[in-house]
């Protein structure tokens, strides 16, 4: 994915102003930056949910700018939403099945002839159930999506996106609100996906996770791309630390706030 000179402003404020952005293929790239840096807006632009003021980008050499959202998704570039969008009155399993692409039964004419799509449907269901197990949602498969908890919604959102078997997936804070133990197991899954050749771009504020899986980190601030590089280097960049990571990253906050001493005893 190569993008050039993308800008988008809202009433005078430039939310995104990216000169040049390259996302390496078959790798995991993390997009980080302070709140309001323009990360989600950039996602919206790249996925066709919003129109840029200027700029062009291409994916695998194919120009994607100006294409409506569903088309870019069809070309293998799928996104998730930071504020989750669940399909309230579809069950979890149905939502998953909806994700699958290339379904014959989704054409209006073919849909009335079940023979044409039933076999494919069974395969899709199998795949969906497999993913649900990994995402710890198997038990919930027959519940309405509306009844999921905040974290479960995030999980479903990501699992659903993976159902499309994308070449390139844009994950907007996929693990916010997900239990750390589960995050850990899911990261392995993401690494598997990379091994299978998927390209991942994700926004995340959990630095442990970024450190753990990202091959490349892009830092945005005030709409601009301010730093790039492998995680270990970028996280040492003083500008990044100052504006984004903060000085306490790996310290014990209990100590900093003065509630506990270094040994972990409660202070008065």
């Amino acid at each position, binding site marked *: 994915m190569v993008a050039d000179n993308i800008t988008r402003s809202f009433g005078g404020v430039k939310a995104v102003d990216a000169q040049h952005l390259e996302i390496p293929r078959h790798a995991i790239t993390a997009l980080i930056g302070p709140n309001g840096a323009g990360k989600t807006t950039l996602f919206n632009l790249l996925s066709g949910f919003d129109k840029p003021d200027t700029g062009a980008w291409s994916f695998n050499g194919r120009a994607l700018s100006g294409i409506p959202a569903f088309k870019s998704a069809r070309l293998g570039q799928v*996104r998730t939403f930071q*504020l989750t969008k669940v399909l309230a009155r579809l069950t979890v399993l149905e939502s998953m099945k909806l994700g699958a692409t290339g379904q014959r039964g989704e054409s209006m004419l073919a849909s009335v002839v079940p023979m044409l799509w039933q076999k494919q449907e069974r395969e899709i269901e199998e795949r969906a159930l497999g993913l649900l197990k990994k995402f710890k949602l198997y038990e919930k498969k027959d519940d309405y999506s509306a009844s999921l908890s905040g974290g479960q919604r995030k999980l479903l959102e990501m699992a659903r996106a993976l159902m499309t078997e994308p070449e390139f997936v844009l994950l907007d804070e996929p693990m916010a609100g997900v239990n750390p133990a589960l995050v850990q197991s899911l990261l392995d899954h993401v690494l598997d996906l990379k091994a299978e050749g998927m390209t991942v771009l994700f926004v995340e504020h959990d630095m442990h996770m970024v450190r753990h899986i990202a091959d490349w980190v892009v830092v945005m601030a005030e709409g601009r791309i301010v730093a790039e590089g492998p995680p270990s280097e970028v996280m040492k960049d003083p500008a990044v630390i100052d504006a984004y990571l903060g000085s306490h990253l790996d310290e014990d906050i209990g100590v900093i706030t003065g509630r506990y001493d270094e040994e972990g005893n409660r202070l008065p």
Partner: protein
Amino acid sequence: MVILQAAVPASAQDDGSGGESQVNVEEYDQNVTVNIRNSNQPVPDVRVVVTGGDYEAEAVSDERGQVRIGVPTQDPYEVLVDEETLPEGVTVEGDNPITVAYGSQFFAPANFFLGEDVRETASFLSQFVERLFNGLNFGLMLALASIGLSLIFGTTGLTNFAHAEMVTFGAVAALLVWQLGLPILVAIAVAVIASGAFGWFFDAALWRPLRRRGIGLVQMMILTIGFSLVGRYVFLIIIGGGTTQLPGVGGTKHQIFGPVALSTVDIISMVLSLLVLLGVSYWLLRTRIGKATRAVADNRQLAAASGIDVERVTRIVWVIGGSLAGLSGVLWAYFRPGIKWDMGVQILLLIFAAVVLGGLGTAFGALVGSLVIGILVEVSTLWIPSDIKYVGALGVLILVLLVRPQGLLGRRERVG
């Protein structure tokens, strides 16, 4: 076969110019009435001769340029004007004589309209200005109803099709109170208060219990349809199917400037609407409760979690929405004019169109939308047939939404 038994009204006035203008009228069953006018002015003292078969009679036109001559049969007769007796320079350009056909009747006209027609027709501009003001008046009245609807929609999410009945309620209440013998201004005040109370009651008796039961908005919307049916037919039972007028309706118009003429009632209603609208806007934008209504509109649960008594706010909104609807009903009764059991439904679609055009849930949007719709309805008839005047306004609604799906003043939502 048609046998028609109509006779000409025995003309009451006899102008005393010698009776020559009415000849043989009493003698025969059928007659010819001749009118002679020059440039739309009656021409007196013109000799007219009627001949047919072996009958002939003549008469001289009276002050009104009229002659009436009785004839013995229903056969065709020829009516001739003696051009000699016409004033200097006036000639008959059309047929002379005219042959009168009786058709199925016992009287027939034979009119000689001479000279140029000198009507003074209103210029396009003056018509335009006149309708613009009329539309403005209509729009302001619509705005009162629309803002009430928009407020209720805003705070409860309810698309209230029974709003029409709340409008009618105001007018009917004013009528009933007035019929009790109270002065009309008191009646109107009582009606507006009663409308507010009606709004309160509506909420307390119906919507609050339903909200508690967690009934979906679409279901509630259908419920309002049921309520609207009930309301309308209750009004029909109470006031019957006819139209009744409040006192002070009609009245002559005062020339304000140029072609703009407004009646006293028009002026009062426009000023009143404007004041009330400004008041409501101030309330919404500046006061704590006003802001709370918008918060409730956005997210009831969160509003409650912020310490807002959501039920109370909703109640207040229903009361205000009800009073505004009631007031607009009274003004509507003066604008149409007339009170009828279904007067509300007849503008319901326009109210909705106004609210949507401006952007749902935005009070100012409702105001702007109402003015646009009001003016469009009135002005568009300068170009399109008046029996499709609503088509113009509704068409504009669709066109505007094509360009601005969120309405004129609505805000687009952010994705993601």
